[in-house]
């Protein structure tokens, strides 16, 4: 009872990274609260294939729902599973990925249980809360922290009186790590028919097509990112060259994506990918809040900008005042000359 639950997302039998990130975070929250971390996964022919992708992240109890038509995901059967399981288990917190699936499932479940849900959280913490109107106090609520208003402000949301406290988190925002403490690692296989009504399967998936990601921007140790100051699609070619010699990946600001100079799936920022590289080289990026939100945790930040007053320079370790056109070839040249 009152444990922390994570809904684990799969593609076929592959557990999605965002779920492992949330299990890692969920484990920390459970430890703070002194409760267990539970996980739930639903799919088809997954028994024996998914457990070892989930348990190492510190799961005390894993619920595996395995039946035909649970993959590909559709809304109603997965909602039935969570709603009925949560009625039995009474979790205090439920986390899921802010993915297409999580953002389809989360609100449906929250509405069924009349519990609050906060989308796209960037931080989750446990802390006290006082309701000024009723005078009631709460010791350990989940602080659901998220940017709002196009990234111009950060709001902390709480759900004082409804359980579970639900939150979704985007991929890459939390970092996954195998748990080095002790967890029970119990696995159960409940009968799906006791949780899902046959009528739940009325929506049929005719065709499901997913392509593997073309790049690993999220996990890259070095990111070369371009903004409006790159000036053209050709300008990005230089950034790809620099990324190649440094064994990094290329990303872009929203302005560069909107200009059509780089693919949408390489957008870095609050509405794109969140990155945590060792080195972030920002080329011609002014640094709007929505961009900074996706890269502020980078190790060393190098800003190449002809404007010495660009906002991103505030959080940069190195500011190179110059044009992208002039500086990037020099970075390539001197890296090649000096590295072995």
């Amino acid at each position: 009872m009152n444990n922390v639950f994570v809904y684990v997302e799969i593609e076929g039998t592959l557990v999605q990274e965002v779920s492992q990130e949330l299990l890692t975070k969920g484990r920390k929250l459970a430890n703070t609260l002194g409760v267990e971390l539970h996980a739930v996964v639903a799919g088809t022919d997954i028994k024996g294939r998914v457990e070892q992708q989930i348990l190492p992240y510190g799961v005390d109890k894993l619920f595996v729902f395995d039946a035909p038509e649970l993959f590909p995901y559709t809304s109603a059967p997965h909602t039935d599973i969570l709603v009925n399981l949560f009625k039995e288990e009474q979790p205090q917190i439920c986390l899921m990925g802010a993915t297409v699936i999580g953002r389809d499932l989360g609100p449906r479940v929250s509405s069924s249980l009349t519990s609050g849900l906060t989308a796209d959280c960037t931080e989750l913490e446990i802390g006290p809360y006082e309701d000024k109107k009723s005078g009631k106090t709460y010791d350990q609520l989940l602080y659901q922290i998220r940017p709002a208003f196009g990234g111009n402000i950060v709001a902390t949301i709480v759900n004082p009186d409804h359980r579970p406290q639900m939150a979704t988190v985007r991929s890459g925002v939390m970092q996954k790590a195998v748990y080095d403490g002790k967890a029970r690692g119990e696995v159960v296989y409940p009968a799906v028919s006791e949780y899902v009504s046959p009528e739940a399967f009325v929506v049929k998936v005719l065709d499901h097509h997913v392509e593997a990601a073309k790049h690993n921007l999220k996990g890259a140790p070095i990111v070369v990112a371009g903004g409006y100051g790159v000036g053209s699609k050709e300008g990005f070619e230089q950034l790809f060259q620099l990324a190649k010699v440094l064994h990094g990946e290329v990303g872009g600001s929203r302005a560069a994506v909107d200009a059509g100079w780089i693919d949408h799936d390489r957008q870095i920022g609050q509405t794109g990918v969140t990155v945590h590289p060792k080195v972030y080289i920002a080329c011609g990026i002014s640094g709007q809040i929505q961009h900074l939100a996706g890269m502020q945790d980078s190790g060393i930040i190098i800003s190449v900008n002809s404007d010495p007053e660009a906002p991103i320079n505030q959080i940069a370790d190195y500011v190179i005042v110059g044009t992208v056109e002039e500086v990037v070839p020099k970075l390539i040249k001197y890296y090649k000359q000096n590295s072995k």
Partner: protein
Amino acid sequence: MGLKIVVLAKQVPDTRNVGKDAMTAEGTVNRAALPAIFNPEDLNALEQALRLKEQHPGSTVGVLTMGPPRAGEIIRQGLYRGADTGWLLTDRLFAGADTLATSYALATAIRKIGDVDIVIGGRQAIDGDTAQVGPQVAQKLGLNQVTYAEEILKVEDGKATIRRHIDGGVETVVAPLPVVITVNGSAAPCRPQNAKLVLKYKRATCPMERPEEGTPYDHLYKERPYLTLNQWSVADVDGDPGQCGLAGSPTKVKAVKNIVFQAKESKTLTASDADIEGMIRELLDEKIIG
């Protein structure tokens, strides 16, 4: 057979132009301080609805919105593009709603409208970016949902075939009607306003939008009933005030703050060869790059 389609649309503050007075002390949005626009993805949804109307003679498209009286503009924008009717949910009791209380209000109104085949709205609104209202409306009405739709391929034999965006790919699903659909921004853009319809509806208003002292067009409102837009309160839709607005919202805003980034001590370099080579050597020496 014609379809009865309700488009969910929201008037949103243009978050690209946010000033300091955008939030109230209670942490809710001060909408009056911001320019108001038709939520972009709701326009994508309206286009899908209007296409269905063209394909299925006898269909009707109505725009349902919730907000202050000035949100009547959203209904007019819909009428200018080809919608047949609209409803404005407006009441102080609706104020301060989170997504769950919003969904309750919209679902109650949809029940009042009655016999709806398709409820369609944008995936999410740009002021909240939550994408929660569509699925929550569907749950409250006990209807199927298809989110992240890019195109409604066809509606026949009581079923909708829909192509939808998923992470890293696409999916085609078939859902029986009635169904709630949310439309992704990658769907077809909405058609422009039609000049004839603008002329026809430009004086259309909800009663609360009209100044108390009257307008020069009062005679028009008597002669042309279609210029008076539907305006519903909580009582009009038989709503439970306890489930509306701030009272019906499980989530509370604990704190709101402006984003402040920790400024670092940075080294400022020129674009000279010496400066750049110096930096590269420094990064290599400290094994920051390999």
